[in-house]
């Protein structure tokens, strides 16, 4: 026995020293698995082969978490957060680990294909026939050359969803310029979350999502942001959540939303408001902060004599108040806020006034305190005004650009690309420049505040107004399923030549004439500057873990290869660009003068570390004074002009409670929303116009943490944990308050029909007594009818149906954001 014991101890010793030896060799090398291979077989454990770790970034939401991809014997088998990536910090959200399943999804497209069946439709088999990349590129380029010759190059459109950086969506600008189309590209932003960006453009002049300093905030109001489910960067948010909830003092969190969800459940307090009324609560909080003198005087200013004259219902004389970094507070009070009492808000939202008062006092007396929002309050016809009311709280609490507050994102130090498109314009390109509006009419008088209006494209095409497209190429978007009133897209895509580039089958691909399958993200070389995060610049790189397992390539290479085949100087431009890798090598030269904090200074080191970043953020507001980083600290005081130029980019250079941005199109707003043009600048209560009119139930379709950029519908491991709230492990279920169901003779588990103005979809019901009785909830994931064997298995393509089929195509006139959560519906037993 003693001999055995000695052997055991010795073996363990060897094992450990092996591991420690390799660990000492360097953190970049993988320690665990290498040690495993040196473990004696007698231990019972076996490990097959050497493991290699490559850098990448996750593709399942916009957050861009750096990942370490583990490959052994040519098979990818593990993905963990990259400890060297400032978003991931070694962590991942539940989606991140699913990446291997995407790579080895047996339903993936295996190579380029051409349609043989001329008829298009849901039930038409496209009759795919494999073709070579050469054939595909030649055919597409041939068609574009033809359009250009006929003066119809504007009839080619690019549509894209998740763009990552210069090596993919970044190529669109030059393409549009050189080919001569205004439709390069129609982005998905108006079907995403433009509402919050416009609310910020209207108030602080930044048409952008915010960066946040969660770790230092002591109080948070979360308005409909799905903070612990789908807010980006979800992974980092949860890391910060762990910190916020265990630091001293613990961050107090109040969540305002329309349905029971994990964010609410994990908060200190929740207010369950009626859909589209979040702005009313924000206004009441602002009202109370003013009447009780809880605004941040260093940032907002104060009455000249220090006496608070804000009293409910009573106006204040403007000259009595001296504003510092805000503009129009007294006007706002007199014209809107003085009547927005908590009891008024109770009458609009159904949330008791005393609870609103509690929240307002806590928010007003805690610093730093921030109010955040996303699609919940803004995906309504009054979305921008809701958003402005919420964002106004950040000015009142003085957290703009402050420690523990909100700021904006800086861009990376990229070098120039291999060629400048302006040098390659031919006659066609010059002639077409500015000649036609975009197919979606964004940035025109029809949608003066918008950048993209993808959801308008199919409707406009079908109406021939402003024209009909002839050809469209889709990248990382599937509007035929995701756009409101999705069936409109089926009509458009039936009429035009369609190129889809998804690695996976999908509804858009069903209508494609040519499929150019992209590599999955674990097989790609691709860069990606960060989404708004903590302000300081960062850009990450996808490094292929393995060669593509099928005949696929990067989307950027597809565009470059097609471009090379365009006649005239355009082809020359793309020959200069050459390839994604060449492009990335060029832009990475910008790091030489600006090496990252982790030492990344060229393409090779970028590949090795996976990310370039440079801390800190350059600006900070402290007690009403703006400072700029001087290399050592926030020491340089900024002038008003500098603040206006760099931070608060409004006409006044101040945070505007009376928005000059909106007043610039006052007539448009008066026409579209019925607000008197003199009042359009104020954050204010505007009644949401719900589609579906008198139907009794609000219909909301949130994302769960497993909603992976529309693709987890075909991932069995994601399906199995998709909707834990009601145990949705084989499909997603419609969450209904029992009373609502009972009134309609519906029992738990019944199949039901949800009816809107546009039609019906079906779903199975599960009772959630914690929800509002007037709001039914169907998490957004299933109902895909062409995404693969699991997406359609067990009836997941029909029950639940695709909620976008019954979502009316109505948008907030200001932001252009599609009003996904504003529909009203009937519910009945199927």
């Amino acid at each position, binding site marked *: 026995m003693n001999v055995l014991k000695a052997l055991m101890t010795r073996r363990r010793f060897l094992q450990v020293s092996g591991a420690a030896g390799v660990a000492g060799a360097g953190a970049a090398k993988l320690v665990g698995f290498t040690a495993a291979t040196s473990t004696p077989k007698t231990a019972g454990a076996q490990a097959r082969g050497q493991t290699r770790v490559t850098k990448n970034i996750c593709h399942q939401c916009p957050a861009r978490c750096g990942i370490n991809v583990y490959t052994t014997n040519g098979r990818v088998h593990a993905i963990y957060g990259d400890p060297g990536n400032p978003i991931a910090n070694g962590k991942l959200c539940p989606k991140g680990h699913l990446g291997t399943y995407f790579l080895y999804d047996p339903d993936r497209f295996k190579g380029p294909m051409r349609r043989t069946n001329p008829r298009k439709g849901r039930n038409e088999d496209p009759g795919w026939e494999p073709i070579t990349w050469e054939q595909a590129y030649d055919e597409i380029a041939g068609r574009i050359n033809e359009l250009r010759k006929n003066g119809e190059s504007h009839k080619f459109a690019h549509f894209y969803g998740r763009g990552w950086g210069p090596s993919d969506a970044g190529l669109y600008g030059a393409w549009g310029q050189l080919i001569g189309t205004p439709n390069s590209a129609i982005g998905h932003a108006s079907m995403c979350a433009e509402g919050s960006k416009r609310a910020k453009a209207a108030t602080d002049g930044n048409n952008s999502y915010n960066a946040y300093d969660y770790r230092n905030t002591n109080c948070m109001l979360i308005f409909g942001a799905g903070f612990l489910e789908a807010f980006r960067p979800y992974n980092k948010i949860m890391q910060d959540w762990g910190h916020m909830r265990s630091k001293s003092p613990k961050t107090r969190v109040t969540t305002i939303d329309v349905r029971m969800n994990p964010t609410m459940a994990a908060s200190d307090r929740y207010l369950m408001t009626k859909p589209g009324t979040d702005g009313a609560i924000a206004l009441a909080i602002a009202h109370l902060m003013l009447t009780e003198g809880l605004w941040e005087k260093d940032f907002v200013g104060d009455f000249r004599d220090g006496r608070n004259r804000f009293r409910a219902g009573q106006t204040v004389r403007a000259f009595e108040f001296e504003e510092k970094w805000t503009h129009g507070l007294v006007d706002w009070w007199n014209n809107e806020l003085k009547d927005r009492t908590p009891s008024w808000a109770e009458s609009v939202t159904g949330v008791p006034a005393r609870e609103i008062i509690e929240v307002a006092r806590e928010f007003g007396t805690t610093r730093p305190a921030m109010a955040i929002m996303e699609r919940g309050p803004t995906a309504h016809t009054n979305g921008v005004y809701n958003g402005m009311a919420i964002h106004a709280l950040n000015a009142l609490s003085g957290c703009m650009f402050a420690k523990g507050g909100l700021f904006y994102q800086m861009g990376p130090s990229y070098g120039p690309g291999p060629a400048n498109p302006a040098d390659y314009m031919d006659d066609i390109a010059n002639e077409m420049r500015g000649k036609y509006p975009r197919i979606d009419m964004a940035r025109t008088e029809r949608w003066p505040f918008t950048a993209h209006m993808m959801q308008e494209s199919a409707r406009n095409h079908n109406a021939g107004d402003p024209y009909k497209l002839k050809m469209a190429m889709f990248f990382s978007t599937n509007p035929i399923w995701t756009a409101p009133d999705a069936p409109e897209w089926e009509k458009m895509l039936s009429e035009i030549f369609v190129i889809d580039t998804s690695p996976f089958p999908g509804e858009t691909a069903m209508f494609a004439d040519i499929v150019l399958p992209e590599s999955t993200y674990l097989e790609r070389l691709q860069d990606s500057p960060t989404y708004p995060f903590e302000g300081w610049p960062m850009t990450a790189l996808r490094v292929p873990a393995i060669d593509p397992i099928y005949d696929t390539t990067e989307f950027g290479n597809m565009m470059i290869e097609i471009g090379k085949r365009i006649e005239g100087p355009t082809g020359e431009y793309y020959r200069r660009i050459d390839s994604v890798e060449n492009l990335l090598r060029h832009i990475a030269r910008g790091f030489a003068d600006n090496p990252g904090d982790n030492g990344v200074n060229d393409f090779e080191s970028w590949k090795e570390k996976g990310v370039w970043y440079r801390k800190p953020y350059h600006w900070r507001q402290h007690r009403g004074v703006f400072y700029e980083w001087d290399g050592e600290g926030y020491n340089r005081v900024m002038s008003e002009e500098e603040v206006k130029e760099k931070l608060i980019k409004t006409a006044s250079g101040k945070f505007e409670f009376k928005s000059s941005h909106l007043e610039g199109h006052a007539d448009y707003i008066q026409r579209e929303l019925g607000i008197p043009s003199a009042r359009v600048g104020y954050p204010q209560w505007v009644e949401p116009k719900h589609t579906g009119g008198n139907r009794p139930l609000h219909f909301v379709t949130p994302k769960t943490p497993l909603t992976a950029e529309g693709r987890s519908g075909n991932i069995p491991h994601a399906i199995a944990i998709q909707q834990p709230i009601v145990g949705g492990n084989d499909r997603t279920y419609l969450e209904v308050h029992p009373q609502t169901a009972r009134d309609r003779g519906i029992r738990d588990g019944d199949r039901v029909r949800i009816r809107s103005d546009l039609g019906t979809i079906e779903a199975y019901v599960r009772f959630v007594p914690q929800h509002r009785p007037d709001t039914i909830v169907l998490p957004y994931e299933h109902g895909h009818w062409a995404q693969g064997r699991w997406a359609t298995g*067990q009836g997941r393509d029909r029950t639940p149906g695709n909620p976008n089929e019954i979502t009316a195509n109505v948008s907030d006139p200001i932001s252009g954001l599609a009003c996904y959560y504003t529909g009203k519906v009937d519910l009945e037993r199927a």
Partner: protein
Amino acid sequence: MAKWGMVIDLDKCTGCQACTTACGMENNTLPGENWQDVLFYSEGEYPSGQMKWLPRPCMQCEDPSCVHVCPTRATYKDMNAGGIVFVDWNKCIGCKYCMIACPYGVRFYADEKPLVEPDLKNIFPGENGQLWSPPYQGPDEDWRRGIGVQPKGVVSKCTFCYHRVSKAPEGVADLDEDDPELVEFVPACVRTCPPKARYFGDLDNPQSNVNRLIGNKRGVRLRDETGNRPQVYYLGAGAGVPAFQRRERS
């Protein structure tokens, strides 16, 4: 030898299920075979309803009822492996008595009807005696400890990622994923937990962080009345398992 223990802070846990997917990826489990799972519970009614959740690995009990009932000693508590409860897939006869006897429902018989169809077991058919052979399976395999993809007809369970933990330097008090020297030895669920709600360390070492946390934050064991004495402790509010109640049907 260490006595490995896990601490889960429910005040930090967001119920995101990253632990579940990390475990599934690391251990090649099938959909629904959640060695690590997050259990949701809700009570009350609008506007004051509540929802809570409990992440649930195997409790690696000090007095594991599953071990007592196993007729072949296929399931065993290995004191030389930090007290982890393993299933020896070479000995398991698939009688499932351990699944009956486990009060925490952490044991799985994946040779069953698939939760999500079509069945992955048919898409990636088993080779070399495996129940299924996915292309993304990890390199570690040790059937004597239930590590890797299981064969047909056996019970599987959480191993505290023994294939990782076993490579940790001897005598280490805590396996903290933030330590670059240790990160590869940390169990998948602990390593990935974004809010850092999970901790893993030596319960026999009074200096370990896990013991400090249990001491400072009044750690509790779930369903302690079973007498199984888990090596997994919970901190914070909500560390109780609500009794089963029937749902309203109509």
